[in-house]
């Protein structure tokens, strides 16, 4: 557990992070100076469409980017230390698992097929909690129980291919939680699961946050999930951060045109067909991204300045810098 850091204080601060990927077809400008702060004890949602750079952000914190990635600038401060400047060895020993852990989108391929679920969770336990294999086994059963797996003893002995998607995902959480990390990054964890399983899953996360003071960075493209469990939300578009706010503020009073588009494009039960809007256009390819504000080609409020100058994050007055927006003309957005 984190000593010395109080709830609400910044745990991880991503500052001006720029990342490119070198590919055969050209340089993909994946992240363009993003800024994000995750505070201790909160569930922070990171929302955006597929390909906007959410996963890249999370992988960068752990130093798990592919070989063709190039970090062009910025910092990731975790408890005062810049993760980007850390050597691989230190990153592995101190950060991965220990401080930050991560669950991935596709549970099918995230678990090693040749070891049982129990063995894999036990690996974490032995590393971070108790070296004794016999005692570790019991701890594993407890962890499996904590994530509400119905028959921990049975699951322990099963191989991943013998478990359902929802169970696999829960094993993943158990495996990462057993590392006793302080920050859990969940990268689209429920995308591959049934809606009903999703609901259970989210409940489990909420309980963990309350009971264990777990900080979670929840990455998704699903607005509904965000509205359910997140405390604060950051919206991302094409490698740029467009808006960050408390969840209520974001949904009640979104300031950025893209955010508004997102929120209004989700049909709620009460939304009439006429009110249902879509955002025209498609997500741009990041090899030759739009200049300035990357959303400008699809934005109905866009003016000349938008294609020339990239907007910076400005605070919405009256919200104590808790609601920030990256748009030149957000005040005019209605």
């Amino acid at each position, binding site marked *: 557990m984190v000593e010395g850091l109080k709830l609400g204080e910044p745990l991880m601060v991503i500052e001006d992070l720029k990342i490119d990927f070198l590919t055969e077809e050209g340089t993909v400008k994946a992240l363009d100076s993003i800024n994000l702060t995750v505070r201790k004890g909160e569930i922070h949602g990171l929302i955006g469409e597929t390909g906007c750079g959410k996963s890249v952000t999370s992988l960068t914190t752990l130093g798990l980017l592919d070989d063709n990635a190039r970090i062009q600038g910025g910092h990731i401060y975790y408890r005062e230390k810049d993760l980007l400047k850390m050597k691989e060895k230190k990153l592995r020993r101190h950060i991965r698992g220990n401080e930050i852990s991560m669950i*991935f989108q596709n549970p099918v391929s*995230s678990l*090693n097929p040749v070891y049982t679920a129990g063995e894999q969770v036990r690996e974490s336990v032995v590393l971070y909690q108790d070296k004794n294999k016999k005692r570790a086994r019991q701890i594993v059963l407890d962890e499996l129980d904590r994530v509400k797996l119905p028959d921990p003893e049975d699951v322990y002995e099963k*191989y991943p*291919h013998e478990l359902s998607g929802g169970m696999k995902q829960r094993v993943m959480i158990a495996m*990462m939680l057993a590392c006793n990390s302080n920050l859990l990054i969940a990268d689209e964890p429920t995308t591959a699961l049934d809606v009903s399983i999703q609901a259970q899953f989210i409940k489990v996360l909420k309980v963990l946050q309350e009971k264990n003071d777990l900080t979670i960075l929840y990455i998704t493209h699903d607005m509904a999930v965000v509205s359910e469990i997140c405390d604060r939300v950051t919206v991302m578009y094409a490698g740029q951060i467009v808006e960050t706010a408390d969840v209520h503020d974001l949904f009640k009073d979104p300031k950025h045109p893209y955010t508004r588009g997102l929120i209004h494009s989700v049909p709620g039960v009460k939304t009439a067909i006429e009110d249902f809007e879509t955002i025209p256009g498609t997500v741009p390819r990041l090899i030759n991204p739009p200049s300035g504000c990357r959303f400008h080609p699809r934005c109905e409020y866009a003016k000349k300045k938008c294609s020339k100058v990239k907007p910076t994050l400005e605070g919405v007055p009256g919200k104590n810098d808790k609601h920030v927006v990256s748009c030149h003309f957000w005040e005019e957005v209605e």
Partner: protein
Amino acid sequence: MLERYIKSKRKRFIIKRVIKSIPVILIATLVAFSLMRIGGRDPARVILGHTATEEMLHEFNVEHGLDKPYHRQYIDWMHGLIFHGELGTSLRWGRPVTELIRPRLPLTIQLMGLSLVISVVMGIGMGVLGALNPNTWIDYLTSTQALFWWSAPPFWVATIFLLIFAFELGLFPTGGYRNIYYLVLPAFVIGLRLQAVISRLTRSSMLSVLNKEYIKTAQTKGLKKHVVVIKHALRNALIPVVTIIAMYLPWMFGGAMITEQIFNIPGMGRFIYNAAMSLDFIAVQSSVLIITIIAVTANLFADIAYTFVDPRIELGQSEGV
């Protein structure tokens, strides 16, 4: 239908697999039998020499049952084999084939075992090195050496090794057999070529495994690099290697024949060569059958081992290809 009597899925699989081997061995006996008889040459002539008279030739053939019709010879052979474990009497040496093989087979097995060790250690090592450093000089080095040893004919490699390491440098004996050290150089000849196969396979298998998500999961947990590579990646990557090695067993016997010939080692390989050159049908058919049975059994074990090594396979179906 077997389900009623034997509950264990794995046991059923093993039984089915063993049963599948029976027709294979049967076919092998037919081929082994016909192998030298199709050519139509008369062993008696070759073995007794050109001073032999018609009478002597005839006597020889009768004595060894070669005058009987083919199907009779085959049945007699099979009968002796199955019910008495007899492999026949050698045409060239006049002694029971079992007696001739007994001291020789273990030697060849030793040779092959040594080759296997060399090739597995080298092959997996090279393959892993290449996969962990793809497209670097390390990778090119390991890939190129694999390609080279794969392309070099074993009989030539054996000859050159004999020249350089035995005759010129004196590091190894120049032939014969007194102890296992005499098998080292020939084992390298076979092993280096086998290693080429293993290293290429290991490399591509490792590369594909290293791209999988569960490797990122392992890294995320904060595991040390060698744990990720060995415990998580290699364990998956080596799964196909077992099967491939079993597939190369027959080839290894061929390699043994050549190296035993060149290094003058009194093993099974050289025995078969001499027997074949003398047209000793009987010795050849039985020896060849023995090694084929060994190869079939090895493949059987490999298939069974595979079910232990990869928990994903369905033991319900019996594999076709």
